[in-house]
């Protein structure tokens, strides 16, 4: 199994968590979300983001509004919904538990060897 492929799969799984976290405090439009994700090295190409945004939107975790922009065409701002916030807090807990569990497992294994 290729390392890169596994890493990509792991990233994809937690991308939704990241997207919701980025939007947790303020609304952002796609390009801003992309910048955050690229900075954090969570995505390599931008195409990955759009299907996820649409899926979160259809699950009612996100909504959007259009706003005129001074420099170009209107921008589509994504906003987290209350359901989205509830979902985010749940998966954040899930993520923390998982992280802890993996670390603990690795530690016990290390101690044995």
């Amino acid at each position: 199994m290729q390392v890169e492929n596994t890493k990509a799969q792991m990233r994809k799984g937690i991308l939704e968590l990241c997207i919701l976290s980025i939007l947790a405090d303020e609304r952002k439009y796609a390009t801003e979300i992309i910048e955050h994700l690229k900075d954090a090295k969570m995505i390599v190409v931008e195409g990955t983001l759009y299907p996820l945004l649409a899926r979160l939107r259809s699950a009612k975790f996100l909504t959007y509004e259009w706003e005129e922009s001074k420099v170009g065409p209107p921008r589509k701002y994504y906003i987290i919904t209350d359901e989205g916030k509830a979902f985010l807090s749940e998966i954040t807990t899930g993520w923390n538990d998982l992280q802890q569990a993996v670390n603990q497992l690795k530690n016990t294994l290390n101690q044995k060897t």
Partner: protein
Amino acid sequence: MNKTVNVNLAGQHFYFDKAPKTKLEIYFVEIKKHFTDEVLCQEIMTDVEARIAELLHQKTTHPQQVTTIKNIEDIIEVMGEPNAYKIDEEEDKTEKTKQNKSLRKLFRDPDDRFFGGVASGVAHYFGLQIKWVRLIWLLLALFSWGGFTILYIALWVFVPLAKTTTEKFMMKGEAVNLSNIEKKLKKIFKT
């Protein structure tokens, strides 16, 4: 000299050469293949178009500038190959073969025709050799007392001519994907 075409992306106007326009069209077709849900697909494509328009906008220094194949290649590099848009791994193979099949459509072939290109279109559609279809046509024309002529004219009128490269691929039932389109474009530019 290249023919320039007008392209509307997310409500903005761009001037394109023909080859980059085809390349972008194929790119969109390839992305859409990954989504079965119509509404979701529409939403994703609106966002993708808007982003591509934005990227193109950054590259154009004056409004009359023509978008080249290099511009589109750069954009695909940023956006990622169509595979990057796939969310779920499971719907992979079965979906793909299904969709490639259903992509075959009846068109009239403008490159190989006596009259309307109906025979060549039908031959492509059923995967037959064109000479047999023409032979059947001839026999039908002789023995159907004009009935066939009416049918032929009806087909001529109602079956669309394959105008774009995408349509020509669909006519032949070939997968509409970037590698096929590239081969085709290379052929065009060599001649």
